[in-house]
């Protein structure tokens, strides 16, 4: 077992273990419905979290994604319902906008040497503000093309479905994994996370990479917004509040270090599943009050982190010879 895969393995183990525990208590949780739901319901979060993984791997953070998702939804709703544009054109347009928005934040972070936390926080205000300005109402999207897209799913035995957006999330993860581990850009992202000044000395194009990272995150946030608008058939400026925190949590549960430079895109997927599992478990239980729900989520989060630490600690031999 390679040491760098340890956190990932730990996370996967924890997921399998807790899923088994859940099933032991609620046998229904093994149904294909639950598995299909896990994919569909978390699709937008998963897609955004892939972008977040890259950002965090590079040592940054992107707080704007929730707001960008909301903006994308409202934008689509407005142009589709009031502008009469074809959804595909609108998709292309909105993805261009969010990508440029991300790139702009990346450029500010790099050229003005400002911390990502703050730049993207301002980005969050701005994106949500733009959504408000476009429309404060929630606008339903009734375009027939949406219905077509939503009609695309693969029915599993037992009533579950792999929907288009669920499949799209898996695809995005696959692409993300390839980019992270099999392209120079991916290695450069890790390099930035290992230390920007050093990476610069080693000839990594820091400016370009930073801009591309945030542009990529913006692109995926936009894609996530499209998925969200498909998911809810609407655009709403208050949608997806706090998604950035969920995404960060998924990334970190997935074994990526927030300090950057170490982690896996695949881990994020497991992180997403773990979070989804917690929620499913809580709904299956159904006896928790609002407050106990929060407390339990917090405690489970804590338990996962501890467990992960424990597994890594136990299986790491004292720094040894090569």
């Amino acid at each position, binding site marked *: 077992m390679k040491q760098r895969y340890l956190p990932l393995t730990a996370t996967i183990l924890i997921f399998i273990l807790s899923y088994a525990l859940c099933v032991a208590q609620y046998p229904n949780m093994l149904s294909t419905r639950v598995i299909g739901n896990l994919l569909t319901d978390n699709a937008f979060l998963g897609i955004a979290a892939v972008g977040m993984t890259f950002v965090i791997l590079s040592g940054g953070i992107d707080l704007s994604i929730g707001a960008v998702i909301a903006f994308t939804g409202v934008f689509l709703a407005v142009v589709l319902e009031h502008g009469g544009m074809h959804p595909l054109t609108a998709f292309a347009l909105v993805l261009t906008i969010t990508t440029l928005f991300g790139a702009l934040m990346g450029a500010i972070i790099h050229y003005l040497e400002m911390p990502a936390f703050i730049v993207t926080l*301002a980005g969050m205000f701005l994106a949500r503000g733009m959504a408000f300005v476009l429309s404060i109402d929630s606008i339903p999207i009734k375009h027939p093309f949406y219905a077509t897209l939503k009609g695309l799913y693969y029915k599993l035995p037992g009533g579950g479905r792999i929907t288009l957006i669920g499949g799209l999330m898996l695809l995005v993860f696959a692409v993300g994994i390839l980019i992270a581990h099999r392209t120079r850009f991916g290695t450069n992202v890790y390099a930035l996370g290992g230390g920007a000044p050093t990476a610069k000395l080693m000839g990594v194009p820091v400016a370009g990479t930073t801009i591309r990272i945030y542009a990529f995150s913006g692109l995926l946030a936009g894609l996530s917004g499209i998925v969200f608008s498909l998911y809810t058939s609407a655009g709403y400026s208050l949608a997806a509040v706090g998604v950035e925190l969920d995404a960060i949590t998924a990334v970190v549960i997935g074994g990526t270090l927030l300090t950057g430079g170490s982690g896996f895109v695949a881990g994020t997927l497991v992180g997403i599943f773990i979070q989804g599992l917690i929620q499913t478990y809580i709904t299956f239980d159904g006896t928790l009050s609002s407050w106990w729900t929060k407390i339990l*989520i*917090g405690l489970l989060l804590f338990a996962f982190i501890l467990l992960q630490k424990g597994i890594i600690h136990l299986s790491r031999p004292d720094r040894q010879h090569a």
Partner: protein
Amino acid sequence: MTSIGRTYLMRLLPQLIALATVLIGISIVFPGFLNLEIQNDRLYGSLIDILNRGAPVVLLAIGMTVVIATKGIDLSVGAVMAICGAVSASLITSGHSLAETLLITLSVGVFCGIWNGILVAVLDIQPIIATLVLMVAGRGIAQLITEGAILTFNDPGLIFIGSGSFAGLPMPVVTWLIFGIIVALLVRQTALGMLIEAIGVNRQASTLSGVFTPVLLIAAYVLSGLCAAIAGVIAAADIRGADANNAGLWLELDAILAVVVGGTSLLGGRFSIAASVLGAIIIQSINTGILLSGFPPEFNLIIKAAIIVFILVLQSPRFRSAFTFVNIPRAAGKPTEREAK
């Protein structure tokens, strides 16, 4: 001494300029803004409102500054505010004396800090995630105490903390002023400040130099918890009720923003309490300014974003080195003016 005073002023200069700019901007849009008058034995006016409304964020920013200086972050402060507000309300309504209530409430804040601190310093969990646990669970705990309702109280003593006045200033302002001065003196008149900065810059080297890192880290989170507790009491006292659902909601982001506007680097190290307090006041000025401006609320966020970006760009190292009209010592440790001569 004067040279230290001058360094100090230079450190605060960008924040002072930003604050002045914002205030002038508002008074152009809203002319009566700078008026101050005495009413019911206390100063009354928009400027006082800013200081008063800013109290929770100022307090949170004080604790957050120290945590950030250690290279940490505390996302739980909003939730801790809610918990402490709820605790104080439920204690006072169940007949405890004001002193008991305050003591227990502050202890709860301290306890929350210890919890965070242990997670970070002993269990070595990344601060953002360690404090996320309490951020999520904490609001649940607060709601558990109030059962989701607003727990109203009528104790004049507790209410005084929120809306009384002392020496012509609202109590919240007096509280944060005194508390801020105490903390600033505590960190600067003792060696705490330097040791905390050392930990933030290089924890390993500090430990090897004999700095008692775990204890200081925990202390930083305890301070943050304490600040959140005070802020929570003030927020509850202000509305005479503990609103566990909304008290301190998203205020952690405002506090972090205040610290950054105050020029303290999120990467830890050099910090200034005074600058963070100014940062918080700047943010509150923006908020109040937006309210006074009379724009429809849809524009609130955009205006806020624009002003913050503007201020941050002005403060960014790149921008400043491009326009070296003022060569101000940066928190991150850019050379000081004195060297340049």
